[in-house]
């Protein structure tokens, strides 16, 4: 429900309650005023009649055109000097019921007690109500239409800074590293909101920039010393060394290799999380997968793994080419590394999904946990256990649905692609360009 509608409803409820009460009050106050006026008039008539009796003027039964009833009382004077009675009766000769007020005054005149009674007709309650009803209806038509019109107009003006803020937040992208520009407003609530949003986004931008700087620095600062160590060890290995020293050098080199790999993988993951690879272009996926499988052909043969390919041709996936390469490398090298001797690998590619199955030992942690960093199905394995985390991250940023299952001694990874809009493929040159930037894992040094 819109904010303005909520406000309007509230105002209408308040107005309705007020109307009900004010109607009741109006009705009774008008009615009592009218009754009192009639009673006053009748009392005056009674008084005039009494004066006439007192002065001995012959009187007829009407005063000021009203009928007055005079009665000589034999009883002593009652305590109440006047009585008022209200009744419904009809005019003589009319069926219509009228509201009649009868006023009797008890007055001592010339040492005799008289009861002087006169009556009059006043407007009926129902008639009064009908009159008020009309007023209320008109009042409500006026209120409703004015609220409906003004609420919309006024809300547009009052809420415009709020809407602009919303729009600014919507368009805000931390990757642009630009601070949020919010419209000035004199509404206190919006001012508070704006300053809060401003502070929050400014902080986020600052943190993002420093995080990025750290990532880049960490990568650079760590890789250089590692590179130096590796080189020095290589130079050392060429000098005259004993067998024992050779083994030590190799061990150190292996650790260094692992260190630099962990470092670069973590940096890559961070950059993926920062969505730094957002160029989504249609990638000729079936071609890429065939190239990748060719690349690993000899490894497959050496491990005597049998490969079954079911690759649909003409499959394009909206994916950054470099990430596509990384994804396939990680998946296929995983399938090779964690395979059993003389096992098999099935690769199936359709327009909807990529399915890679391989034989392998049962993992001793739930398969879904294998996507976490440094989680390994087999703790003794030499790998650092970050390949699947990278795969998962790539799938996440491209909104692919990735599932890992283990059944019948087969590990299955299924990646469901997001539907690709074939309109992407209008320009064949863009496809060629995207292919030309694909980097094979090994560039032959020829």
């Amino acid at each position: 429900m819109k904010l303005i509608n909520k406000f309007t409803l509230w105002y209408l409820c308040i107005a309705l309650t007020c109307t009900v009460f004010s109607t009741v009050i109006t009705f009774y106050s008008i009615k009592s005023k009218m009754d009192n006026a009639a009673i006053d008039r009748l009392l005056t008539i009674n008084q005039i009649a009494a004066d006439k009796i007192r002065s001995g003027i012959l009187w007829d039964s009407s005063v000021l055109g009203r009928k007055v009833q005079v009665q000589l009382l034999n009883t002593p004077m009652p305590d109440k000097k006047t009585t008022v009675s209200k009744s419904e009766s009809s005019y003589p000769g009319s069926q219509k019921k009228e509201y009649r007020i009868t006023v009797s005054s008890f007055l001592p005149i010339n040492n005799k007690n008289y009861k002087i009674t006169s009556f009059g007709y006043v407007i009926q309650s129902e008639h009064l109500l009908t009159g008020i009803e009309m007023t209320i209806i008109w009042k409500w038509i006026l209120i409703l239409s004015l609220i409906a019109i003004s609420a919309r107009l006024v809300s547009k003006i009052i809420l415009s800074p709020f809407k602009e803020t919303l729009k600014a937040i919507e368009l805000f992208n931390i990757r642009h590293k630009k601070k949020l520009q919010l419209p000035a407003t004199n509404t206190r609530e919006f001012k508070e909101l704006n300053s809060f949003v401003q502070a929050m986004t400014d902080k986020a931008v600052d943190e993002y920039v420093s995080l990025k700087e750290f990532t880049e620095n960490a990568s650079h600062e760590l890789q250089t010393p590692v590179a130096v160590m590796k080189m020095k060890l290589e130079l050392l290995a060429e000098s005259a060394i004993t067998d024992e020293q050779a083994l030590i050098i190799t061990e150190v080199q292996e650790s260094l290799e692992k260190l630099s790999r962990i470092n670069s993988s973590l940096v890559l993951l961070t950059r993926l999380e920062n969505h730094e690879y957002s160029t989504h272009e249609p990638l000729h996926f079936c071609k890429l997968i065939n190239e990748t499988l060719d690349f690993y052909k000899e490894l497959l043969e050496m491990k005597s793994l049998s490969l079954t390919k079911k690759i649909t041709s003409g499959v394009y996936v909206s994916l950054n080419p470099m990430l596509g390469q990384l994804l396939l490398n990680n998946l296929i090298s995983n399938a090779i590394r964690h395979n059993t001797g003389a096992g098999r690998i099935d690769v199936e590619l359709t327009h909807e999904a990529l399915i890679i199955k391989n034989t392998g030992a049962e993992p001793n942690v739930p398969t879904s946990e294998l996507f976490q960093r440094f989680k390994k199905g087999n703790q003794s394995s030499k790998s650092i256990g970050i390949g699947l985390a990278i795969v998962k991250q790539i799938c996440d940023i491209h909104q692919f649905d990735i599932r890992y299952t283990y059944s019948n001694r087969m590990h299955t990874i299924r990646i469901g692609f997001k539907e690709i809009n074939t309109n992407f493929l209008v320009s064949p040159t863009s496809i060629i360009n995207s292919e030309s930037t694909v980097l094979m894992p090994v560039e032959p040094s020829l």
Partner: protein
Amino acid sequence: MKVLIIEDSNEMACSVRDFLVRESYICEIASNFSEAEEKLFRFQYDCILLDIMLPDGNGLNLLKLIKTEQLQTNVLVISAKNGLDDKVTGLEEGADDYITKPFHLPELHARIRAIYRRKNLNGNNLVQFNEISLNTNTLGAVVNGRILDVTRKEFDLLLYFIVNKDRVLSRQSIAAHLWGDYTDDLANFDFVYQHVKNLRKKIGAARGTDYICTVYGIGYKFNTSAT
């Protein structure tokens, strides 16, 4: 060959120089942007090893300078940024190849030689060592005039050995050369062993000398003095 090493880390530049000097290359070191700029204008180099991150400027600007001044040289970009996109940017800016820190020295050497072959020895794609001759265009290997039936990986391996002859090549270095360092610890050394074994067998079958010998604990060496 005259090489300019543009690198802010002195230890690293010296290691590279020490390695390349043994190949009788003439190496000079520039440790910052301005020094590099000055050297580039005053001397001529066959190959430039360029670190992108320099303390007083971006290496990519040097690349632009080389391009606009039309300096006749090859550029191999060295970067610690393992950003896949930097690789493309570097190559688009006119670099001949790209290598990411940390790398193996024999790998660097192989890359330098590959660029040099590609750019300077026009049409001559033959790498010759005694009875072994490799054609880097057709990927054909000939031993004693007999064509060797080698796979792509074995060809790469043999070329790597010959370029880095008389050098100790660690198994990691060979694995990284053959499979790249993209994959998470695929460098399973059994595969290296298998490849080396097959290659030696094939050369032996062609009555070639068994130049490749094992270096205990570390890896292999293409021993030119073998008989």
